[in-house]
């Protein structure tokens, strides 16, 4: 397999991964999202390691553009869901800790 093929293979794998990540995020399946996120990272690491001897074919370039557009769009949407969720989680955890401290102090 040529580096060009390998590169395109990576993008072909990554695009559906980010799509599934978005589905998991929308469904609130956080454990699934975290697992998919690990696969996503390892594919991108692999992508970074590929050296191209020859440039991509024009058709490949068009396909790459299309795949990258989908990937980046999904990435942004996942982020849009995760960021406020994390903020909520953080604030509620903080509340629970405070409440627990109060109960420790006054309850028992």
């Amino acid at each position, binding site marked *: 397999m040529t580096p060009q093929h390998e590169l395109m293979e990576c993008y072909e794998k990554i695009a559906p991964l980010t799509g599934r990540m978005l589905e998991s995020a929308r469904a609130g399946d956080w454990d699934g999202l975290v697992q998919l996120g690990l696969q996503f*990272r390892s594919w991108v690491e692999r992508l970074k390691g590929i050296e191209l001897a020859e440039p991509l074919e024009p058709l490949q370039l068009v396909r*790459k553009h299309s795949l990258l557009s989908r990937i*980046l769009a999904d990435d942004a949407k996942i982020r849009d869901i995760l960021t406020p969720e994390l903020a*909520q989680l953080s*604030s509620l955890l903080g509340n629970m800790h405070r409440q627990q401290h109060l109960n420790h102090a006054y309850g028992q």
Partner: protein
Amino acid sequence: MTLVTNLGAASGLPLATLLSSITVSENQPLTAMSNQQSAYNAKLSAYGTIQNALSTLQAAAAQLGNPALFQNVTATAGTASVLSATATTAAGIGNYAINVSQLAQAQSLATAGLASTTAAVGSGTVTLQFGSISGGTLDPASGKYSGATFTADSTRAAASITIDSSNNTMAGIRDAINKNKALGVTASIVNDGSNTPNRLVLTSTQTGATSTMKISVSGDAALSNLLSNDPAGTQNLQQTVEGKNAQMTVNGIAVTSASNTVKEAVQGVTMTLTGTGASSLSLQSNTATVQAAISNFVTTYNSLQTLTKQYTAFNTAAQTQAPLTGDATLRNIQTRIRDTMNTPQPASGSGASLTMLAQIGVTFQADGTMAIDSTKLTGALTTNLSGVQNLFSSTSGTTGFGSTMSTLLTGFTASNGPLKSATDGLNSSLKTLATQMTSTQSLISTTIARYTKQFTDLDTLIAGMNQTSSYLTQQFAALNDTSSK
């Protein structure tokens, strides 16, 4: 763990709702349990205070339930120079005419004079026997008897001292006598100013006619000549004070006493004679102690009322309860105390019968406290003490407000009483509550741990995505540059 707190706020998300419901459903019961715990502890403390107040009231009631309280008698002598007197509860009420014709006195004997108190006299054994002298005559000048008979007091054994080289002087004999308490005499040396001035004076430690000394000496003639003294025979000592009994009459009846402390000549009374002459002796009921006991009971009862009111109050303005508001145990105790106090006591005795506290001026006020009409109480104590005694006490201990209240209150504070079972119940509830709180607490801890892990995982995911995203964005930008060229 570091929590990210600057990510901005959003709401209405599923995770937020989930966590919210956890906070509400799990922390609220914990807060409620904690409040319940505080309420139980406040109740326990209130029961403890009530228990103390009931014990104090029980002691006050028990005092009133003791018939002896009403038999306290005060003895008063009309002439203080003749006698003083004290009475026990055994004393009856009454007035007595006392006439003291003679005070009891202790016999005193003096030896002939010696020139020196430190020169040796002689050795031997000196034996002393107490007894009484009868018949014969006493020459007041020489202080000696003639033709008299000495009868030893069989209840008092003779006692001896040994005089030898260690103590054979007048001073030595004096010290030997004083050292031996069993002899029953004290010795001193009196200087009469003559050529042979030193005279040893022996005085009986007890007064009375039967405490007359007979002194026998076996040993040197010099010692015998100094000390031997037989009222029925040779008397070497001079009697300076005759042993006498006290002579008196009580309501005309002759009374003789070896001592000036005359016990039971009047039942329950001890008279101390201090001079001759006539005096009255008045024995009156000590109503002051009864009045003080009643007053103490009322004060203690009112303290309990104040406490009860404080512990059962409901603040309508603040809508707050006191620890024992609506408490059935305390209400039941209060009701039974009140019922007991309002139950008439059986009438008895010859005087006007007293069956209710109001008849002696002790009444319940509108606010639940008790008050004393002291004029009415004093009147009842003065004119009908036996009636008041019957109202509070009985020899059987089953009737009288003091006795019945004491029994009732003892039951309340007993180890199987209502307060004990109420506090046992509370302690058991507190134990259960503590167990529940511990398990709820651990449930919350588990939940927090679970969501903390989730947060950390998502946080790590975001950090990773930041890296991948920046790389992919570069690739995308490069692609656009290429295609635009």
